């Protein structure tokens, strides 16, 4: 796919820009200085292909509404496609006519490549190039990575794979590391599990702890009781010590009190009562005298005040008048406002009066129409105002439609006179592929025929005549001959082995025979058999002598006996010698026997080998004969088995090639027959569209013209169809517009009749204009409120006048009654009355106050006199109580003194009893006396000391028992303590959850990692050779021969890597290359990868953005050369803002291999 042109509307800073990408030149240099819109153009290409993102800075200037990107695309098969892209959420693609185009259609042309893949594969800038080169260095030229990252444009995958490695490593590995998530969770599990186990309390533990608590607490209680009893005894002894002294003092005090028994019974405070009675008597007499004097002074001052009762009687009247005065004063202030209100209301009615022809005095209230009548007129006005523009619009639309209809009818009529009112019946797709298919079929036919001729030649060369002869002559298959050769080789190998075995056996036999001879030199060695024979001979020699000796028959002649004895002696000596030799020569004898045995065995083997050789020779002869009999001609032509095998193989290859060629021819024929139908369609198109047959040239030209004709016809037919639809639509609309107009007119008539009835009800002339009538209705609607206001205000003014007259009348009457002269003004009258009344009130208040005070002083004098009498009576009563004569103050004072002494003694007794109660702890005196029983102080102290020792000992024991019980209880409580147990359980579960989580994450990830690595290894194996070969060629051009190519190698870690080959073919590792060379290597692989892609799918444009920034002039020229070549494979768009690059491309432009799109000019 090549983008021939791109029209950019309202995108980035472009409002309307057309870019034409040199359609005939392989390489297009898009040149633009800064701010010329280079980046915008680049972005527009991508956004056109893959859609405009929802959020994009390209809409900042114009907004997204009018954004359009229209491109003309030339497909590899020659088709031209025009598509337009807008910004939006769905269906953003249309064709040249604005008809929607499915996104999937473009996606198919893009071969399933998404935007991100396009950017990492088909787009490359200097930054990516440089970092790609740098990554090569990091990876030390690893081939798999180069193929994936540079060749496949899968840089993100490599990064992800690295991340994946890191993540899986961080999750789990059989090697323990506290950094790995798995082992962290495992450690947490171990800790929590330990805590859980520590928190578990078994029933037996529980029972043991419970018993310990019970025992300790029982013991504690026993000691406590014992201690309490001892403490009680001690307490009693201590109490005796404390109470002994107070008891003795109590006895003394009671004796003194008994001596004062003759004193009269007097109250405790007697002497205070006597003193108080004397004081009270003197004070009361003095107070009575002073009160009397004050009362007399006040009576004189009261008589001097003079009060008039008439004023008191007028109080209610004056207060009421004061209130009325306040009302009148307020009304006077309000009066100007009311008068202004009257004037304003009258003004509001002026317009209505004018419209009705009524004078200022006429009563409008009487003519006020009902509200419904007013509302009716207002509704009618509104209706009329709505209807008028609708009537105008309907009439105008009818007129417009009439014109449009007549134009449409004319166009349809014109179209019907040509053939374009019918569809053509042939689509572009049906014939588009015809030239390429025909060309392909022709090429394949020629190839097949060439192959057949080659096979024929081969048949002749084999000496079996033509292909037919070759096929028919009986000939062993190559496999059969090969198999025969294999068997013969095996037999030959056997034969050689057997011959060797026979020779070996013969040599062995000779060797062993010589050895046996050597061993038998110096006499046959004494063998076991010869020793046995000698011993038998000795036996036989001795037997006659033994018999004769036993029988006593020594009758033989002396020499005969001597002979027998000699014979026996010789036999004995021979046997003994032989036995001795046997012993001495045992080794030699054994070796001799062995040599004889081996010699015999070798002879046998030799015989067997010779016999096997004979058998094998017969087998070989039989097989050769059998083959010759089965294939006489072949055996004659190729007597040598190897030559026969070669011939058989060539024969088979030739026959296969001939079969393939024939099959190919059949297929071509079938393909050509399939072309007949498109050809007929082509002719049909030519005839229908009036293409002149005389102009027929090549099939490709014919098809191109026919395609153009189809496109033109389809367009015309589409216009015609649209017109038909439009005609029908317009007719319907015209009908509807007329109906609408009629309805509006009918409504108008109805309205007129209602209008003439409604206006007179408002006292208006029916001929009044719509606007005046609307205004009058509005005024009537307002008049009702204004008229009500007028009536109310007038009523209020009248009431003010009445109120003021009433005040004057009442004030004058009162003035006369009180004998007071009053001024004219109503308010002044009341004010004077109020002032006088206030003065009267002040005098009255003073009189009342003095009268109250006089009454109080008179009462005080009476009370004081009574008190003096009461005090004198009291004093007399006290003398009587003390049993002294009345009025004898000295006798009374003496009794008082004795009474005081008695009182103190009794107080001392009470104090002692209190001391005793405190020391005795509340025990009764009788009990204390019983416990004390008069003991002396020393005896009491001795008992106390002993008891205190007992208590101390028990106290210590009790403390110990408490501690034991507390500890037992604490142990029990601690064991029962729930704190932390649930937490530990939850923590253990959390650790298990973590372990599961890590494991579940780890396993699929690790598997995915392995899968990818395996897949990458396979892809490397498949692509390595062709990719390296092609990248090598590109590298050579890019480096102008500094590198003659690239090759695969194995580095010192055993890893397959890529190396450069220098001019002399020596390998240069990636690590030793310059940065520039590595960039070039990366570029070579990317271009090689893209070439491979373009061979398999619709080629997509390669977009290079300022790729040559780091290249010097020579490298730039070489790179442009390579890119121009690559442009023959697919469109290359090289964006740059460097003038040097623009200059460098000029030679290529001159040669027609590149074009320049200068953004600053277009």
């Amino acid at each position, binding site marked *: 796919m090549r983008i021939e042109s791109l029209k950019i509307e309202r995108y980035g800073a472009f409002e309307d820009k057309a870019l034409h990408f040199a359609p005939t030149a392989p390489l297009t240099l898009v040149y633009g200085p800064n701010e010329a819109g280079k980046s915008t153009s680049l972005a527009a290409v991508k956004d056109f292909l893959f859609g405009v993102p929802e959020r994009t800075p390209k809409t900042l200037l114009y907004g997204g509404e009018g954004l359009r990107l229209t491109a003309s695309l030339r497909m590899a098969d020659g088709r031209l496609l025009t598509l337009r892209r807008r910004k939006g959420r769905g269906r953003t693609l249309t064709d040249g006519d604005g008809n929607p185009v499915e996104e999937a259609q473009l996606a198919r042309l893009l071969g399933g490549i998404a935007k991100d893949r396009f950017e990492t594969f088909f787009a490359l800038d200097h930054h990516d190039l440089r970092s790609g080169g740098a990554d090569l260095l990091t990876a030390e030229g690893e081939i798999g990575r180069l193929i994936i990252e540079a060749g496949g444009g899968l840089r993100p*995958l490599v990064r992800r794979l690295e991340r994946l490695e890191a993540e899986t490593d961080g999750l789990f590995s059989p090697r323990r590391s506290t950094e790995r998530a798995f082992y962290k969770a495992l450690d947490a599990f171990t800790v929590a599990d330990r805590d859980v186990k520590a928190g578990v309390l078994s029933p037996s533990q529980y029972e043991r702890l419970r018993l310990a608590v019970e025992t300790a607490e029982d013991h504690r209680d026993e000691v406590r009781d014992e201690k309490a009893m001892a403490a009680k005894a001690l307490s009693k002894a201590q109490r005796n010590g404390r109470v002994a002294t107070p008891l003795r003092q109590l006895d003394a005090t009671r004796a003194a009190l008994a001596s004062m028994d003759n004193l009269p019974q007097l109250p405790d405070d007697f002497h205070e009562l006597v003193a108080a009675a004397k004081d009270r008597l003197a004070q009361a007499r003095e107070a009575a005298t002073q009160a009397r004097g004050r009362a007399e002074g006040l009576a004189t001052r009261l008589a001097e005040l003079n009060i008039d009762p008439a004023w008191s009687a007028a109080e209610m009247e004056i207060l009421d008048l004061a209130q009325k005065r306040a009302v009148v004063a307020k009304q006077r202030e309000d009066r100007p406002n009311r008068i202004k209100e009257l004037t304003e209301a009258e003004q509001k009615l002026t317009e209505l009066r004018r419209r009705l022809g009524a004078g200022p005095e006429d009563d409008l209230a009487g003519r006020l129409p009902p509200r419904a009548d007013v509302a009716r007129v207002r509704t009618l006005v509104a209706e009329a105002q709505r209807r008028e523009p609708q009537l105008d619009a309907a009439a105008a639309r009818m007129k417009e439609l009439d014109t449009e209809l007549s134009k449409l009818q004319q166009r349809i009529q014109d179209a019907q006179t040509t053939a374009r009112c019918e569809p053509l019946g042939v689509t572009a797709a049906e014939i588009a592929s015809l030239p390429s298919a025909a060309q392909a079929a022709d090429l394949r036919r020629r190839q097949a025929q060439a192959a057949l001729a080659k096979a024929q030649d081969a048949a002749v060369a084999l000496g079996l005549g033509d292909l037919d002869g070759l096929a028919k002559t009986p000939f062993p298959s190559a496999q059969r001959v090969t198999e025969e050769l294999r068997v013969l080789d095996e037999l030959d190998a056997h034969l050689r082995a057997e011959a060797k075995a026979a020779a070996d056996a013969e040599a062995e036999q000779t060797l062993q025979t010589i050895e046996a001879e050597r061993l038998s030199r110096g006499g046959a060695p004494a063998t076991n058999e010869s020793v046995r024979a000698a011993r038998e001979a000795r036996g036989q020699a001795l037997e006659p002598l033994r018999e004769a000796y036993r029988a006593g028959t020594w009758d033989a002649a002396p020499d005969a006996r001597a002979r027998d004895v000699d014979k026996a002696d010789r036999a004995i000596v021979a046997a003994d010698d032989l036995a001795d030799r046997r012993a001495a020569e045992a080794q030699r004898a054994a070796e001799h026997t062995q040599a004889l045995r081996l010699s015999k065995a070798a002879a046998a083997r030799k015989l067997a080998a010779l016999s096997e050789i004979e058998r094998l020779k017969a087998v070989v002869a039989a097989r050769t004969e059998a083959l010759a009999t089965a294939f006489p001609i072949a055996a004659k032509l190729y007597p040598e088995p190897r030559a026969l095998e070669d011939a058989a193989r060539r024969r088979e290859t030739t026959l296969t090639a001939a079969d393939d060629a024939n099959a190919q021819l059949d297929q071509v024929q079938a393909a050509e027959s399939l072309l007949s139908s498109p050809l007929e369609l082509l002719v049909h198109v030519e005839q229908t569209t009036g293409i002149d047959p005389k102009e027929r040239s090549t099939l490709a030209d014919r098809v191109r013209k026919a395609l153009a004709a189809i496109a033109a016809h389809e367009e015309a037919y589409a216009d015609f169809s649209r017109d038909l639809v439009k005609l029908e639509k317009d007719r319907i609309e015209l009908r509807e517009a007329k109906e609408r107009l009629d309805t509006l007119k009918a409504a108008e008539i109805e309205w007129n009749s209602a209008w003439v009835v409604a206006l007179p009800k408002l006292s208006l002339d029916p001929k009044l204009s719509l606007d005046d009538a609307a205004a009058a209705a509005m005024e009537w609607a307002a008049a009702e409120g204004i008229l009500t206001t007028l009536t109310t205000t007038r009523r209020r003014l009248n009431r003010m006048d009445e109120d003021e007259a009433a005040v004057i009348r009442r004030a004058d009457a009162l003035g006369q009654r009180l004998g007071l002269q009053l001024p004219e003004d109503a308010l002044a009258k009341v004010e004077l009355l109020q002032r006088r009344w206030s003065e009267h009130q002040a005098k009255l208040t003073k009189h009342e106050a003095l009268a109250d005070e006089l009454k109080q002083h008179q009462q005080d004098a009476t009370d004081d006199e009574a008190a003096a009498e009461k005090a004198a009576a009291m004093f007399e009563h006290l003398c009587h109580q003390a049993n002294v004569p009345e009025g004898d103050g000295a006798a009374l004072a003496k009794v008082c003194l004795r009474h005081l002494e008695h009182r103190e003694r009794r107080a001392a007794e009470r104090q002692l009893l209190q001391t005793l109660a405190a020391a005795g702890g509340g025990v009764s005196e009788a009990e204390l006396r019983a416990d004390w029983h008069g003991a002396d102080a020393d005896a009491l102290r001795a008992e106390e000391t002993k008891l205190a020792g007992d208590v101390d000992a028990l106290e210590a024991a009790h403390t110990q028992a408490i501690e034991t019980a507390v500890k037992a209880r604490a142990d029990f409580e601690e064991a029962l303590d729930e704190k932390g147990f649930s937490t530990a359980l939850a923590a253990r579960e959390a650790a298990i959850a973590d372990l599961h989580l890590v494991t579940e994450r780890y396993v699929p990830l690790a*598997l995915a990692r392995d899968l990818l690595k395996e897949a990458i290894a396979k892809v490397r194996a498949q692509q390595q050779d062709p990719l390296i070969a092609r990248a090598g060629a590109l590298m050579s051009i890019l480096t102008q021969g500094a590198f003659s190519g690239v090759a695969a190698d194995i580095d010192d870690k055993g890893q397959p890597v890529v190396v450069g080959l220098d001019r002399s073919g020596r390998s240069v590792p990636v690590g030793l290359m310059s940065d520039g060379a590595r960039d070039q290597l990366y570029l070579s692989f990317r271009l090689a990868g893209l070439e491979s892609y373009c061979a398999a799918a619709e080629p997509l444009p390669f977009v290079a953005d300022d790729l040559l920034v780091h290249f010097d002039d020579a490298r730039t020229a070489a790179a442009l050369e390579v890119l121009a070549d690559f442009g023959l494979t697919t469109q290359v768009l090289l964006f740059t803002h460097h003038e040097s690059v623009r200059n460098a491309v000029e030679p290529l432009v001159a040669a027609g291999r590149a074009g320049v799109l200068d953004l600053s000019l277009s």
Partner: protein
Amino acid sequence: MNFKFLHAADLHLDSPLQGLAAKSAGLAERIEDASRRALDQLVDTAIAEECRFVVLAGDIFDGELRNIKTGLYFVSRMRRLAEAGVGVFIALGNHDAANGFMDKLQFADSVHVFSKRKAESIRLPDVGAVIHARSFPQEDVRENLARNYPAAEPGVFNIGILHTACQGREAYHAPYAPCSLAELVNHGYQYWALGHVHASAVLSERPYVAYPGNLQGRHIRESGPKGALLVAVEDKEVAGLEHRSLDVCRWSIVDIDISECGSRADLVARTREHLRSALGDAEGRAIAVRVRFAGESSLSGLIALDLQGLREDVFAAAAAVSDDIWIERVALAATPSIATDAIEAGTAGILSQEIIDLPPEALPANLELMLGALRDKLPAGARADELLERLRAEAPHRAMQSALSLIHGGTDAN
């Protein structure tokens, strides 16, 4: 006479909630003793509803944990019921029989534990009811216990307590004390209080045969409301049966269809919505949630590449909704939208094809090696078998999807 009782079973006291990784201490504290607090709520409900008695149909304890503290806690709560005048009738289940301390516990007089030797009947003349039951004598009871339950007594309300895997309800549960529904229905009792199956179910209404389900869900397979059945009896007939939720923490599965999400932000917003709704459904309880993403979307590739990021997003969404949400797991069942017929012609396409064409036996070999290494390291008690079995079934597919996502996952941010 009219009365009410509460029917509960499968308390599994002190059995921890499974599958929850550590979270904030506050939430952990609230739910770490969930089973005990659920028991507290059971006791409160019985008292508040003025129940005459509570029926516990087995598996009060979890069996695996031999900690007497659990028993003492149970005893203390039974004492509360006794003090409030509420009786308790307990039939022991398989887990109780496996427990070491059950026999040593001392209950108040108003708590009755049924005999292990034979079915017995307890009469309650004050309310006109009789309760029949038998405890499990040992863990593995394969005989049909119901068959030997006493006949129904006439003129009273008969209740049968039975810990059983009733026919048709055995899934996930050991087939102990099996019986058939027909057999129970025909026995003549007015109410069968069953236990053992952890999902609440009313198997029959004439007469009532019901499982209350367990009191507190313990893992994601026990999701939804958990509690007890409140039964009202009037004139010797069941007049009302109501399931009362008594759980402290509720398990919930939230399914989110990512095919409706246009962006990562959409997905997070949708997750938040779902979590809010799940929390609302839990009536003020804390919830433990498994969030499952499913559906086909262009997002799925990116998500698969960054599952950790997705988890963090889900955790953040949960935190934004409430502190009461515990994410148990984020599961991804989404598939990348790669159709095999749309595979590109370049290296990416060839790589994908290699992965798709991989022989089915190739992965398991690798997998077994990994699982073996993991099995060696996983401690006893970590439910390794269950985990590894699941991985054996699921991991190959997930690995293949992940590998494809790595190839087609779009452009990374860095």
